[in-house]
């Protein structure tokens, strides 16, 4: 029965490995969205490196330990195979090394099956074994290296083969404590004398590890020591004492040891320093959130974005690619190992084997909870490995030797279990470990389901940028569908191309390093396909590719011909031009100078930010300028006179909407009102809207720049304006004021205003079609940041003539 079950479980694990291998092979095709991609085949080596030793060990167990627990080996093999393929997917070089270590571990396991099943030799040589372990760790003080070249020097070895003795020391400590405690308990000594020697020995180990800055292993040491003493004495105060000790260590470490301080600070408030100390943990949480419930699929996520994903953060990598469903399964596998380990402990024929099995279960459990908790911000991050799963040869080998002991201990041939005076410590240990796994599952659910959607919109989530390389973003086109901004390149290398770069301050940019600005930012929902696409399409794309659907094209109200004329004339000057359809509020021209070329953002980006000319600012909508004499026509229309007191000035501003923020799909400046009223500053857009009231019988239109979006279901759909038209001036007063502004020989009205403030002055030109105009009613505002009425007039008049005679 046992062997049959083990065989069956291993077959399920093998199916899992084959499926994962196949998924990794196909993943590049899904990314490129065609079969014509570089499929990945090398991970099948990993599948073989997994399959053959597992098959041999399975046969070995059947032959040598027929009564051993049938769940332990399949669960461990499942976990290590899963880990191996994940590591291979992250980095084939590390994957190959891990595969090799896995083979070595299973060969050791295979030979270990021949050991006498009572493990008596461990008991006999407890002192030698522990001393040997200590010596090896002590050797790292002298000859320690770090395979990656920096960081704590905890490894021994050279020439590409490295071993971390502190991993083995954990297991040796368990063996020593089990042997010592079971020997001493037999002669019924008092608890104090039991604790004394073990404390000295364990304390020595902890000091050695602290000295080596191997804090993760040191904390596991304390926890393991506590567990063993608690199991042997059954006194709950050992748990409390040890908890207090660990808390004391953590607090004093927080104040005196830099790395502990950094880790604890990053745990308490990771959001404070997302680019520095807590970069890892935040990227790990983003990976977990990106995994969602169903995961992105093996090979289809971006777990490489998390630093050291192969070892410390392999849980986050697995969470991203298999989702909450996968990680819950992973936690259940660990739960199975722990439960079977503790069962083996309770059924063990003697105290030594009972302590040993319980200690090994505690070792697996504590290490699992520590690192998964660290990944999920449940606990401060400790750099320990996830047993069986993480990259790390010493850790893998130690885990399999520990598993070998468990297999031996569980292989009792009809021996009665040793008497158990107090079952409570085992129950409490089991409950604590179960609670830890449960807490990890809850935390995983929290980051995935509850916080996930918010987390993914963070600007330090690189996945949006990656998605932009794989999913075409919508085009931005003008009112006659001439392309302003588009996406070029092939899938995987898509990039934004700005066909009409002078519009950059308005249409903005979408850049991997500098983010988004202008209409690219405000219309991102449509351009990214998340708005205007049926919800089912969005869900389907998310499920298949983990990305948004193809973006939708957006048509603007701008007229590229007039825009080109305006930009041509503004070239070399600072200022803005706004031209509106006075009735509908459609913006025909929005020009801001100086401008920049977003096609070269990569090279010029950092200079732009500090440019004293501020080319990034859209002067037409965000620039705030003193009004000066430009408001005379409005004063005439509203109050019937041109010279104003401060109070009257405010009335005029209020009437023509200069104190309101225009509602537009663009970033717009808030009107700025200083305590002195004549310091009112307004944007060219606001003046243009007020001028529209003069040309359109006193009504201020609602401005609009995004006209329509090309949806897959219904074609071009008109986008509504955000604001509503407002009655500003009585119709006849507006018409009367405008008639006075039509110059001899012109068929439009115009007015030039100037304002001087401190040492700078600006010139305004406003103009528009007369009230009785038969064609499209148009208004224009030109602002230049210099005292140059002739230039302003020339630009304004030429543009208005162009616009009136299409």
């Amino acid at each position, binding site marked *: 029965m046992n062997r049959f079950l083990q065989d069956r479980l291993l077959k399920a694990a093998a199916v899992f490995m084959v499926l994962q291998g196949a998924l990794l092979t196909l993943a590049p095709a899904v990314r490129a969205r065609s079969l014509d991609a570089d499929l990945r085949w090398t991970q099948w080596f990993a599948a073989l490196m997994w399959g053959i030793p597992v098959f041999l060990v399975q046969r070995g167990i059947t032959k040598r330990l027929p009564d051993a627990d049938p769940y332990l080996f399949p669960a461990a093999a499942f976990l290590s195979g899963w880990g191996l393929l994940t590591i291979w997917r992250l980095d084939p070089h590390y994957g190959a090394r891990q595969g090799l270590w896995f083979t070595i571990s299973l060969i050791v396991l295979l030979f270990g099956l021949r050991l006498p099943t009572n493990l008596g030799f461990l008991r006999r040589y407890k002192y030698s074994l522990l001393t040997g372990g200590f010596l090896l760790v002590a050797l790292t003080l002298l000859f320690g290296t770090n395979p990656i070249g920096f960081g704590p020097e905890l490894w021994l070895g050279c020439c590409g083969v490295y071993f971390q003795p502190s991993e083995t020391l954990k297991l040796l400590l368990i063996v020593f404590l089990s042997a010592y405690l079971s020997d001493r308990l037999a002669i019924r000594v008092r608890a104090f004398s039991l604790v004394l020697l073990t404390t000295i020995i364990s304390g020595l180990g902890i000091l050695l590890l602290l000295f080596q800055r191997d804090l993760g292993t040191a904390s596991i040491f304390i926890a393991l020591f506590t567990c063993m003493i608690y199991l042997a004495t059954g006194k709950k105060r050992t748990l409390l004492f040890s908890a207090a000790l660990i808390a004391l260590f953590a607090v004093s470490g927080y104040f005196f040891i830099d790395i502990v301080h950094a880790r604890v600070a990053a745990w308490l408030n990771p959001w404070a320093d997302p680019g520095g100390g807590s970069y890892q943990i935040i990227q790990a949480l983003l990976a977990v959130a990106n995994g969602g419930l169903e995961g992105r699929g093996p090979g289809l996520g971006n777990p490489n974005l998390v630093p050291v994903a192969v070892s410390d953060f392999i849980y986050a990598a697995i969470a991203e690619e*298999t989702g909450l*469903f996968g990680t819950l*399964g992973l936690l259940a596998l660990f739960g199975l190992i722990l439960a079977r380990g503790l069962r083996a402990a309770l059924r063990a024929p003697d105290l030594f084997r009972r302590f040993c099995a319980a200690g090994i279960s505690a070792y697996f459990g504590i290490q699992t909870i520590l690192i998964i908790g660290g990944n999920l911000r449940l606990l401060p991050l400790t750099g320990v490995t996830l047993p069986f799963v993480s990259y790390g040869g010493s850790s893998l080998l130690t885990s399999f030797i520990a598993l070998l002991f468990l297999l031996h201990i569980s292989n009792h041939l009809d021996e009665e279990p040793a008497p158990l005076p107090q079952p409570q410590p085992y129950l409490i240990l089991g409950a604590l470990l179960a609670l830890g796994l449960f807490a990890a599952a809850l935390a995983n659910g929290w980051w995935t389901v509850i916080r996930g959607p918010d987390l993914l919109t963070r600007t330090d989530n690189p996945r949006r940028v990656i998605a932009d390389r794989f999913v075409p973003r919508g085009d931005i086109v003008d009112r006659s569908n001439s392309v302003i901004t588009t996406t070029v390149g092939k899938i995987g290398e898509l990039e934004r191309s700005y066909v009409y770069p002078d519009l950059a301050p308005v249409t903005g940019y979408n850049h991997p390093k500098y983010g988004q600005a202008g209409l690219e930012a405000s219309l991102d929902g449509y351009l990214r396909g998340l708005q205007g696409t049926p919800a089912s399409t969005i869900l389907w794309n998310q499920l298949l590719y983990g990305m948004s659907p193809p973006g939708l094209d957006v048509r603007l109200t701008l007229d590229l011909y007039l825009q080109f004329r305006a930009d041509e004339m503004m070239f070399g000057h600072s200022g803005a031009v706004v031209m509106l359809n006075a009735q509908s509020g459609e913006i025909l021209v929005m020009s801001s100078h100086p401008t920049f070329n977003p096609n070269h953002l990569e090279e010029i980006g950092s200079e732009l930010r500090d440019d004293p000319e501020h080319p990034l600012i859209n002067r037409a909508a965000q620039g705030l300028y003193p009004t000066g004499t430009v408001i005379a026509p409005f004063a005439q229309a509203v109050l019937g006179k041109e010279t104003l007191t401060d109070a009257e000035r405010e009335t005029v501003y209020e009437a023509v909407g200069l104190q309101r923020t225009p509602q537009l799909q663009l970033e717009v400046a808030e009107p700025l009102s200083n305590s002195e009223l004549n310091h009112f500053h307004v944007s060219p857009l606001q003046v243009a809207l007020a001028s529209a009231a003069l040309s359109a019988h006193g009504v201020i239109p609602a401005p609009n720049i995004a006209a329509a979006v090309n949806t897959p279901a219904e074609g071009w759909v008109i986008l509504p304006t955000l604001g509503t038209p407002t009655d500003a001036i009585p119709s006849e007063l507006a018409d009367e004021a405008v008639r006075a502004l039509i110059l001899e020989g012109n068929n439009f009205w115009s007015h030039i205003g100037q304002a001087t403030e401190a040492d700078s002055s600006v010139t305004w030109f406003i103009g528009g079609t007369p009230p009785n105009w038969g064609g499209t009613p148009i208004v224009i505002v030109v602002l230049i940041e210099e005292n140059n009425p002739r230039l302003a007039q020339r630009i304004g008049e030429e543009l208005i003539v162009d616009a009136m005679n299409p």
Partner: protein
Amino acid sequence: MIATVVLVLRLALAIALYIFLGWALLTLWQELKQQGKSLSERKKTGISIAQKSEQGNAREFHFYQADIVIGRHTHCDIAVLDEVVSAQHARLTYHHGQWWLEDLSSTNGTFLNGSKVNTPTVVITDDEFKCGNTRFVIRVDADENAAIT
């Protein structure tokens, strides 16, 4: 197209994981059921206990269960009307093929053949033990199979 195939494979991957866990859980549950059944059906050796009060009245009990509690409380398997017997005084349990007598931290102690019982002790036929002023004589059924046949 390929993405749909991959989606199906991803589903299969999750199913493989949960089939593994499902099998493990199912067999664990079956094992639990089996164990419960075998424990409840385990062949037991019956025991007869003759109670002798100070006045010399004798009562005889016979049990097939594996756990017998003696005390003053009416819920006990053998409820004794004796003021110096504690509410739950002593317990007889059957395991490892033998009957064991154990004192349940009673006030006045349990005495087996005159000596105080501190740890669970094996008892055999004709052993006599005393709770308070009440004496009991044990007779273990001769053979495991005798009770059945």
